[in-house]
Structures are given as structure tokens and as C-alpha cells.
């Protein structure tokens, strides 16, 4: 029964977070705890000649200092995460991947590969002393040639970031559907262009942090980490340190935002447990913002060279895309982002001939990992810029070109003819993309915008409107679990493997459980973010928790209900099928006035000799369910941006932003809207403000918030939202993911809107962010070109 699912229930998490009593890693204090500080490389590519720690060691309050030589043979390097980078055999057959082994030592050994790489670690009584000591450590570097440009990196004879990775190409694959080259011969027009998405830093307001507490007596190590993937952190610690996995417990307490990069297991998460074991005391490390901007994993950074064949009426015949992913010094996630890009490129469009070549290249920059959207914003920016360029070339409204190529509702489920990353066929499960487009066009009153635009143009004002659409594979497997039990107070305790960073898991999973069990959300206590709570778990990323953990919660709740009902039937003297549960009361359909509670059922379920339970019922009220999705579910959306551009300054004012989206069954509308608004804000950031910049020596130029601009309340409009609800066919509740969606389309929608505002000039915006200086440059160039044509 749907009673709580679909309601904007207020969050259980809020009380502690608004009273300052939440617990983030930095808030945890343990008796005898020491603090660690990392010495990081100021060089992008250099050999380490010598490290002198003698002065630092003598500083009072310093307990231990480790450098690369100290851990050689003791700590294994971090390599590709198998759980994320394994290529299923059928996918491998289709894309023929070439993969070269790559790794990172948790403290640099012999050479450094990027600015910010950990070189040494100091552990002292407190952070102040540890930082003093870190300043006293002298590292002698011999500079090597920095490899910064991925195209230079791929050239034969280029210096190597990692010796064993030939030509710095860590991975490449090729995907082919139909015959793009033949289509190009038959087309009326060919478009060739290069599209570039910037390197970004996810910047949760809580930086990373790790505490480890090794207990000598039990050989147990308890690790607290601001992570999205406690189970992956546990597995990686066990692997790198050679420890028994079950002796490690990883807890993700309150985590202050993640957005992807907090899911990449970082060197510090290995080093800190190792040191705690070494010194026999708890050790804490909390990252500062400079460290976050230099050393926390970064993301995006793709360059696409596309060739598109199309007809006079705007029909796209083929898309050929050769793209390079600049992964920085290490690629830990295999083809995750690159293949996400490849399989999302065609989005809501029918393009029968399709060819992709992708190269993941290593350079002397901070390693990249997935970040909200994980390859999709890059795909959508490329595709939707292409659509817009076709429309301008053909002098058609972009809406016409979009409609011309869009998958129709009656074609659902739609087979895109290739495979998803997990090996399943790429079949969109449900949705109506043209209806979403029409709904969005109505929301923005598209036709009247066009009229207003013409009128304002006469007054010298440049307003523009831009559209972007996407179809997003969400709810990636492999699985998520729920372990439910009832305690003596009659509360249901639900342990889930998916740990949150602000998505409201404690609330939404209680809503799902309440409906399935006939309880209220307050009767259900959700426990997440701890490897101690159940044997297997994956984590929160890839818009997957509502789909996977939500489904596991639902199925486990039904299993628990079955058991409760069976035992309640014994107490009530009724057959189980006659027993009902409503708002925590358990009664026979025939006699609603006589009810029992979960406490009564709990007592009866205890192992006991008199009266015993029937042999077919196992004592105790505990069930586990692991939900394994057949493949991803396909959420979709249409975004429309309205901007005004000041030609004199290149300044873009985002006047309105509208979204129509489909995430299947909505569990909590308030939380879903919050995810969309927050995602759009990050997308706006990457469209207009954010970029990690390295100079030609691989030096980071954007190491503070004065250089790396996060959008503030002055830049983010309140997004107008419209909803569709096409249920997924791939899980019991019909849920699709929503976490990442908001961030996917803004760069494309905003860039298209800016081009539209300046339609009297021949401007191509294929690089982000569209900062005032970049746009002013483009305007100046276009005006010059126009003047020279006029003067001829």
C-alpha cells in the first residue's frame, strides 16, 4: 500500500544537523588520538633524490614520520578498482579494450606524478605541531619533463607518466554500430567540430578526513572515513595492507557531501590505518581546502572530435566521435566515465550509424574519478551542441532538429543497439521524451520568448534560450542489501549498505519500509554507513541508492512482514492470510478491535522451549534481502535555460532555468526536488564558473576559492520543475535514479542559450566554462570577422 511513498516527509536527519550535533569525521575525538599531516609534492613530474626528515623528527610532539622508502614492500599500491573497472566479456567482445596496468603508491616512491601527491606523512600530538614538522622536511627533487597536454602525451617518444603505460594511453576502446562512413557519403551536410569539457573539482563543503583506531588486543581496526564507499575502503585497506578484511570496520559517519570523488579510495585512507597500527594509538587526518583542490580526485576533462552527417531536414544519419579522456596521473575506474560517455552520447535521439573511439590518457595532473554525472555531462554537452550547430547551419529552430531525431513514446522500450557498461543490452525501459519536451516548452512559453527576443534585439538587448535533453542510465548494480530486524521495543531496525552524504536515506528508506510493513516511518530506524551492519554493500554513487537499496528495503520488508504475520497468526489464532498490519497494529481482519504489537510478536519469536514455535518458523525476527537489478533504469529530462548576455562585458545573466524530468516513482517529492535543484546548481557552476586550471608545467593555478569559483546564492535561480512519472520496469517499485541528473544538462542548455542570444554573430561555444573573459574574446573575434565581411 502506498501511504508514505510519494509524501514529502520531513527528514529524520535534520534535527542533529541543525543543532550542531551531527557527527562528521573531524568531530570525532578518541582518547590518546594523534593527528597527521601529509607533505605533498610541489612538482608535477620529478624524481625524488633525497628526503631529509632529521630536523622534523627532533621536534617535540612528533611521534612518527613515514616516507615512500618506509612503506616499500609493506603497503601495496592502489590499483584499478576491480568492482568498477571490470569489462564484462560480451562488452569486451564488442569494444575490444586495450588496458595497461596503472597504480599509485600511497606515498610516492622514487618519483612524483602530480602536484599534491603524498610524499611523506607526519604524525604528532596535534595538527599544529605536525604542520611545523612537515615544514622541516626537505625533499630534493630532480625535475622531469611535465606531461600536461593529453595529445602530446600520446605521441610516440613522449615522456611517460607511468613507465609501464606505453604512450600514456592507459585504456582505449572502439565501438561501432552501422556504417558511419557510408552515411557520411550519403549525407547533405557534414559537421566537424571539437568539444571540450573542463576539469572539475567536486568540492563538498566537508573536505575528506580519516580516523583509524587499531586495537592491539583484538587486532581490530576501526576506520572512520568521509567516504561514499565504506565497503570499498575496507576491501582496499585489506588488500593494500594484507590485513584480514573482517578485522577492519569502516564507518562513514555524517558525510558532508561527496558527489563522486569521495568514492575514490584515496592514499590517506590506507596510510592512516597503517600508522595507527604502527603507533598503537588512534590517528586522525583532516584535509584542508588547498589539499582538496590539489589532491582530492578531480573529474571530467574530455576532448571530443566529432563528425556528424545529416540531411537538409535536420535528420542525423551518423555520429562519429573520437574522444580523449585526460585522466591525470592514474585511472582507477577503468572505462567507467569513458564508456558512460559513449553509451549516453545519443541520448534521446535515434542515430543509426554510430562510431566511438575513446582513449584514456595519463598526464601529470591529479587523478580523475567519476563526479556527479560521470561521463554523461560530457556526452550531453557534445551531443546537444551538435544539435544546436546543425539547427543554426540549417537555419531551423533547434526544437525542430530535436523533434526530428527524438525517440517517440510508441517506440518504447527502445533498443539503442549497443551494450550498457554492465553487459546488458542498451534498452530504454520507459518514458515519453517528446511529451517532456512539449511540457518544458510550455513551461517557458517558448513562442512568446521568441517574440520577446526579437523585440528586445531591436533595443540592443541579447536574450537567448537553450535546450538540452538527456537519457540517463541510473541505479547501476551490482546490488544493494537490507538486513531488517525487530528489537524488544518493537522498532524495526534496517541496516543498509548504501551510505548517504545528504540524500536523506534515513527518511526515504523508512518511508518504503513503512508502506511494506504497515508501520509509520518513525517505527523504522535506518542504519547506514557502516561495514559492521551487514556483510555486503556497495555504496552511494551513480544515482543508485533509491533504486538498489530502496528495492532491497522493499523486498526485505515484505519478507519480514511474512514472518511477523505468521507468528502473529499463532498469537491471534488466525491463519496468516487473515492477519493485517496497519500503523503498527497487528490484528485479524475479522476482529480489528483486538490488536497486538510488534513487541508481542518479538516476544513470541524468541527461541524458547515453552511454548515453542512451529518447526517451520525459525526463531527471531530477522531477514536479509539483496536486490540485484537486471541492469540500469533510464531516467530522462529536458532542461531549458534562459539567459541575457551583455556583449560589452561578456557577462551572462541566467534569468530562468526550467527542468522537466522523469525519475519513475517518486519516494519523497521534497527530496527529489532538492536533488534536482542542487544538481542544476553544480551544472551551472561547470557551465559558467568552475574550472581546474594547470599551467604548462603542471602547476595548479586554482588552489583556493578565490580562483576556483563555486556558485553562490547570487548565481543560482530557483529552478522551475515539472515532473513525469514513467515507472521503471526493472525494480518492484518502479524507481529510477535522480541524484546526478540535475548536473548533466546545464552546460549544454546554457551554452546553447548564449549562442542563441548572440545569433547575429557567428559564435561557437565548445569550451567551458563560459566565463566573461572567454565569451568576450569570442564576441570580439566574431565581430571582427563580421566587420571584415561587411567591408568586403
Amino acid at each position, binding site marked *: 500500500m502506498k501511504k508514505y511513498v510519494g509524501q514529502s516527509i*520531513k527528514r529524520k536527519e535534520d534535527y542533529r544537523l541543525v543543532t550542531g550535533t551531527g557527527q562528521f569525521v573531524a568531530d570525532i575525538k578518541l582518547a590518546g588520538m594523534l593527528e597527521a599531516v601529509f607533505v605533498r609534492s610541489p612538482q608535477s613530474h620529478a624524481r625524488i633524490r633525497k628526503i631529509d626528515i632529521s630536523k622534523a623528527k627532533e621536534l617535540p610532539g612528533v611521534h612518527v614520520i613515514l616516507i615512500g622508502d618506509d612503506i616499500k614492500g609493506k603497503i601495496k599500491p592502489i590499483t584499478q578498482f576491480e568492482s568498477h573497472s571490470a569489462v564484462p566479456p560480451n562488452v569486451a567482445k564488442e569494444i575490444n579494450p586495450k588496458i595497461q596496468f596503472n597504480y599509485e603508491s600511497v606515498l610516492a616512491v622514487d618519483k612524483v606524478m602530480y602536484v599534491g601527491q603524498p610524499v611523506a606523512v607526519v604524525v604528532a600530538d596535534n595538527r599544529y605541531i605536525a604542520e611545523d614538522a612537515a615544514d622541516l622536511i626537505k625533499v630534493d627533487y630532480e625535475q622531469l619533463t611535465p606531461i600536461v597536454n593529453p595529445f602530446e602525451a600520446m605521441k610516440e617518444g613522449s615522456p611517460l607518466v607511468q613507465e609501464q603505460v606505453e604512450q600514456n594511453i592507459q585504456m582505449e576502446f572502439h565501438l561501432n554500430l552501422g556504417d558511419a562512413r557510408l552515411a557520411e557519403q550519403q549525407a547533405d551536410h557534414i559537421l566537424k567540430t571539437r568539444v571540450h569539457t573542463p576539469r572539475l573539482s567536486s568540492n563538498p563543503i566537508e573536505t575528506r578526513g580519516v580516523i583509524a583506531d587499531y586495537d592491539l588486543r583484538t587486532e581490530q581496526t576501526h576506520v572512520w572515513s568521509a567516504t561514499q564507499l565504506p565497503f570499498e575502503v575496507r576491501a582496499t585497506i585489506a588488500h593494500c595492507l594484507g590485513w584480514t578484511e573482517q578485522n577492519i570496520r569502516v564507518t562513514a559517519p555524517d558525510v*558532508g557531501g561527496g558527489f563522486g570523488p569521495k568514492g575514490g579510495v584515496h592514499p590517506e585512507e590506507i596510510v592512516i590505518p597503517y600508522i595507527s597500527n604502527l603507533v598503537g594509538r588512534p590517528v586522525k587526518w583532516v584535509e584542508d581546502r588547498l589539499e582538496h583542490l590539489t589532491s582530492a580526485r578531480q573529474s571530467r576533462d574530455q576532448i571530443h572530435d566529432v563528425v556528424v552527417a545529416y540531411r537538409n531536414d535536420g535528420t542525423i544519419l551518423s555520429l562519429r566521435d573520437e574522444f580523449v579522456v585526460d585522466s591525470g596521473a592514474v585511472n582507477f575506474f577503468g572505462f567507467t566515465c569513458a564508456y558512460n560517455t559513449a553509451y549516453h552520447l545519443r541520448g534521446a535521439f535515434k542515430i543509426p550509424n554510430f562510431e566511438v573511439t575513446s582513449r584514456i590518457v595519463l598526464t601529470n595532473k591529479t587523478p580523475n574519478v567519476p563526479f556527479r554525472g560521470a561521463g554523461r555531462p560530457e556526452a550531453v554537452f557534445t551531443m546537444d551542441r551538435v544539435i544546436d550547430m546543425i539547427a543554426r547551419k540549417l537555419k531551423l529552430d533547434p526544437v525542430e532538429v530535436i523533434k526530428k531525431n527524438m525517440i517517440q513514446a510508441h517506440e518504447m522500450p527502445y533498443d539503442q543497439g549497443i551494450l550498457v557498461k554492465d553487459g546488458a543490452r542498451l534498452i530504454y525501459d520507459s518514458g515519453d521524451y517528446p511529451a517532456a519536451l512539449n511540457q518544458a516548452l510550455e513551461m517557458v512559453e517558448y513562442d512568446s520568448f521568441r517574440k520577446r527576443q526579437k523585440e528586445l534585439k531591436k533595443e540592443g538587448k541579447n536574450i537567448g534560450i537553450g535546450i538540452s535533453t538527456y537519457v540517463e542510465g541510473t541505479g547501476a548494480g551490482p546490488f544493494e542489501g537490507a538486513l531488517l530486524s525487530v528489537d524488544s521495543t518493537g522498532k524495526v531496525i534496517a541496516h543498509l549498505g548504501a551510505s548517504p552524504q545528504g540524500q536523506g536515506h534515513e527518511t526515504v528508506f523508512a518511508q518504503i519500509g513503512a508502506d511494506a510493513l504497515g508501520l509509520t516511518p518513525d517505527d523504522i530506524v535506518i542504519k547506514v554507513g557502516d561495514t559492521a551492519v551487514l556483510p555486503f554493500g556497495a555504496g552511494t554513487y551513480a544515482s543508485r541508492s533509491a533504486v538498489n537499496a530502496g528495492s532491497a528495503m522493499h523486498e526485505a520488508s515484505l519478507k519480514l512482514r511474512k514472518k511477523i504475520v505468521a507468528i502473529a497468526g499463532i498469537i491471534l489464532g488466525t491463519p496468516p492470510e487473515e492477519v493485517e498490519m496497519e500503523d503498527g497494529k497487528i490484528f485479524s481482519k475479522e476482529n480489528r478491535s483486538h490488536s497486538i504489537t510488534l513487541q508481542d510478536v518479538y516476544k513470541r519469536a524468541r527461541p524458547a522451549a515453552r511454548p515453542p514455535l512451529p518447526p517451520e518458523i525459525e526463531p527471531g525476527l530477522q531477514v536479509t534481502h539483496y536486490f540485484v537489478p537486471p541492469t540500469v533504469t533510464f531516467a530522462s529530462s529536458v532542461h531549458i535555460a534562459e539567459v541575457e548576455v551583455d556583449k560589452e562585458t561578456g557577462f551572462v545573466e541566467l534569468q530562468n532555468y526550467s527542468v522537466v524530468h522523469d525519475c519513475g516513482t517518486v519516494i519523497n517529492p521534497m527530496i527529489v526536488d532538492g536533488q534536482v535543484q542542487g544538481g542544476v546548481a553544480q551544472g551551472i557552476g561547470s557551465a559558467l564558473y568552475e574550472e581546474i586550471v594547470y599551467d604548462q608545467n603542471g602547476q595548479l593555478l586554482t588552489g583556493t576559492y578565490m580562483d576556483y569559483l563555486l556558485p553562490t546564492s547570487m548565481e543560482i535561480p530557483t*529552478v522551475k520543475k515539472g515532473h513525469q512519472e514513467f515507472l521503471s520496469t526493472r525494480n518492484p517499485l518502479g524507481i529510477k535514479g535522480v541524484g546526478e541528473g540535475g548536473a548533466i544538462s546545464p552546460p549544454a542548455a546554457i551554452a546553447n542559450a548564449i549562442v542563441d542570444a548572440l545569433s547575429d554573430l557567428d559564435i561557437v561555444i565548445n569550451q567551458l566554462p563560459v566565463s566573461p573573459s572567454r565569451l568576450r574574446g569570442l564576441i570580439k573575434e566574431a565581430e571582427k570577422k563580421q566587420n571584415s565581411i561587411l567591408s568586403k
Partner: protein
Amino acid sequence: MSNKVQVEITINGKIVQKEVEPRLLLTDFIRDECNHTGTHLGCEHGVCGACTILLDNEPVRGCLMFAVQADGSEIQTVESLKNADGTLNVLQQSFSDNHALQCGFCTPGFLMTLTHFLEDHQNPSEKEIREAISGNLCRCTGYANIIKAVQQAAKTLQNEEMNHSVISAQ
């Protein structure tokens, strides 16, 4: 570093006397010496606003001050906001009602900035609210619900004020 300095700082109504190093950041003093961990550190260079506290009733960034500079001052942190009976105050409740927080890490800074703002803005416009919080970064919410929360809080406070004056008039 033994050149410690004696400070006396009133935190949330309680006088704290400690000997501290002159270089100790005010936020570290509040978090580590006084165990009020609700005040968070987000950037430690004065941009993100997560560490905002009220110092003698003015919002300041705890990461840009040393504890010794606060000697003799009165400080309020997020821990001071809730009602005596443990329930949420008007602003806190409005944040929860409007889903104005997701991860909640930046929230204490917003709450302290806004506590001060609402004292002399009884009926703020959206623009005024946006300006008031423009020095606090939130990476989760996209700000829209924070603005809604402030609007609700301002309205509730105004109603309370009116009721209160009606009662006093009677």
C-alpha cells in the same frame, strides 16, 4: 610553544578560561578546547562561511581569527540556537520544514549568518536574503530551499512578534 596566553571567552553563556597558544585558531578553540563541534571548517581561508559564529552579536568567520583575539568576548555558536526544551527554534524548524539542508555541513554557518540577519530584517525580500547568504557556500542545495526557509522563518517570527505585542497590550 610554551608561550601560552590566558583567555576568558563566554561561549553560549558559559565562561571559559583557558591557556592557549597565540596561534590557536578561534574555530579550533571552539571545537577542540570547548567541544562545540557544531561549528565546521570548510575552507580555512575565509570564503565558504561554514565556520560563521556570532562574536559580540556580529557574524564573523572563526577560521580568520585567533582565539586570543576573542579574549573577553561573547560567542554564540549553532549549539545555542535550540529552545530550552530541546525543540528547534523558528529558523532551525524552517530549515527542516523546507528541506534547506542536505548533507548539513554548511548549515551551522548559514544559521548563524541568518540569526543575525533576521534580527534587523523582519520582512526581507528575496534579493536581500540572497545577498545575506552570498558569503556562505552550499554545494548540495542550490540555495532555493534556504531562501524559502528564511521567508518562512521571517513570517513566523513576525507573527510571533505580533501575538506577543497583542498579549502585552492586553
